[in-house]
């Protein structure tokens, strides 16, 4: 299943204390949310907000730092007869697999136990996709700058943007253009933020889209259909593929 480089990286990361702490944190949060809340719907909503805040943060920061700290390892591999592409792919799958596994063990198991099957599936898949998106963005941050501090700074800013600032901007636009029928445009805008995409998917699953008001109805009309779901998934996948391929392109041409 894994090649040698991936095996080595997975073994290395799974021993990492931060990943263990992340798994533990998710486990404590999810178990306590589901134990304290009788209504599993409310539990999911609480968990959703926690997961959509921590998973991107840990994924992007851990990836960026890990890549900077692996500079030596990458250098060592480069002088060996290995394709550059293979080194980068190995790092990506190693990081993605370990972080997705951490998410699954920490949050996935309680979700599967407490939540109805279909919703649980969507939640777990979204968590894993969001992990992949932010691992890919972490790769982009790490390759863009040789300077570790700057790279990590960009990673934090990206997380801040997608988690907090983006929603602020959307709200601002909503108020500014509240006289116009911009509900349809909101569907387009939401595609610009992978976290929002994941959130919409899950909220629609829970049948609480009424909470989103009229925009929610539009969302339901669009993302509720098979075609809309397909497009939503495709958009999330683009959020993984585009940043990763961009970083790969840069890595293949980089001087080390």
């Amino acid at each position, binding site marked *: 299943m894994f090649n*040698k480089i991936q095996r080595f990286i997975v073994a290395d990361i799974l021993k990492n204390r931060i990943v263990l702490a992340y798994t533990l944190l998710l486990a404590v949060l999810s178990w306590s949310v589901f134990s304290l809340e009788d209504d599993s719907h409310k539990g999911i909503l609480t968990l959703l907000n926690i997961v959509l805040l921590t998973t991107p943060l840990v994924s992007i920061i851990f990836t960026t730092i890990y890549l900077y700290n692996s500079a030596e390892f990458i*250098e*060592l591999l*480069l*002088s060996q*007869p290995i394709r*550059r592409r293979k080194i980068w792919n190995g790092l990506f799958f190693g990081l993605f697999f370990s972080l997705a596994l951490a998410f699954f063990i920490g949050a996935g198991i309680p979700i599967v136990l407490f939540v109805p099957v279909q919703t649980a599936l969507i939640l777990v898949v979204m968590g894993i996709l969001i992990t992949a998106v932010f691992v890919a963005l972490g790769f982009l941050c790490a390759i863009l700058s040789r300077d570790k501090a700057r790279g990590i700074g960009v990673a934090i800013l990206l997380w801040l943007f997608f988690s907090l600032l983006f929603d602020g901007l959307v709200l601002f636009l909503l108020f500014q253009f509240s006289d116009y029928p911009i509900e349809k445009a909101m569907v387009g805008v939401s595609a610009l933020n992978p976290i929002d995409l994941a959130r919409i998917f899950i909220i629609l699953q829970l049948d609480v889209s009424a909470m989103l008001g009229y925009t929610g109805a539009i969302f339901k009309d669009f993302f509720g259909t098979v075609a809309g779901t397909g497009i939503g998934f495709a958009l999330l996948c683009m959020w993984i593929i585009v940043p990763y391929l961009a970083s790969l392109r840069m890595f293949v041409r980089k*001087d*080390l």
Partner: protein
Amino acid sequence: MIEICHLSKKFGKLEVLNDVSLNCAPGQCIALIGPNGCGKTTLIKSILGMVIPTAGTIFFKDKNISRDFHYRHMIGYMPQKGRYPDNMTIGQVIEMIKDIRGNEEKLDEQLIEDFGLNEILDKRMRTLSGGTTQKVSASLAFLFNPEVLILDEPTAGLDPLAAEILKEKIIAENKKGRLIFITSHLLSELDDLVTHVVLMQEGEIKFHMPTSSLKDQTKTTSLAKAITYVLKNDHVQ
């Protein structure tokens, strides 16, 4: 065996290599010398594919190396300052490289034994001194019986005993017909090792000639004197 044609490399505006051409045959032991920052390491890294040239091509056994990686099976590289993952032990690093190279041919573990690395295989890389790290780098470079050896400042940081072991190993490998590149600033140390000299200055190759003819032309007896003579008088054919 290695043919470099009109190689140029720019880092931004800085021109590190300027139209470098060089042809190296098996059995040569080439000293790559020149002042700091003249492009020696960049040239070496270009051969290894770690630096991607702005212009020009490098042929390894008549095959263009750009976008290829198989040729690196035939190269052993000892970096100037080897950097290894901190948390791995010496044994793990050696095992991992063996695993990656996957050579079935006989391994040459002579240096691992001679440097006494066998006794400290479970030490972590971050606890090692600079010299011991160099020993690991050297052992890895020679481990796979490569046809080409590229040694960037091999004896810097090694104690006299280890340096002597390494030098004898280099001579022995050279006698087997291997092509060896050495960069070093310790000219006196190169004297009994090298068969050819390449002098680089400001990204250009000043000359590439056998040591004996260099000594003849400059009427000197040692490499150090010959190079000093050339640098002062600035011409030799």
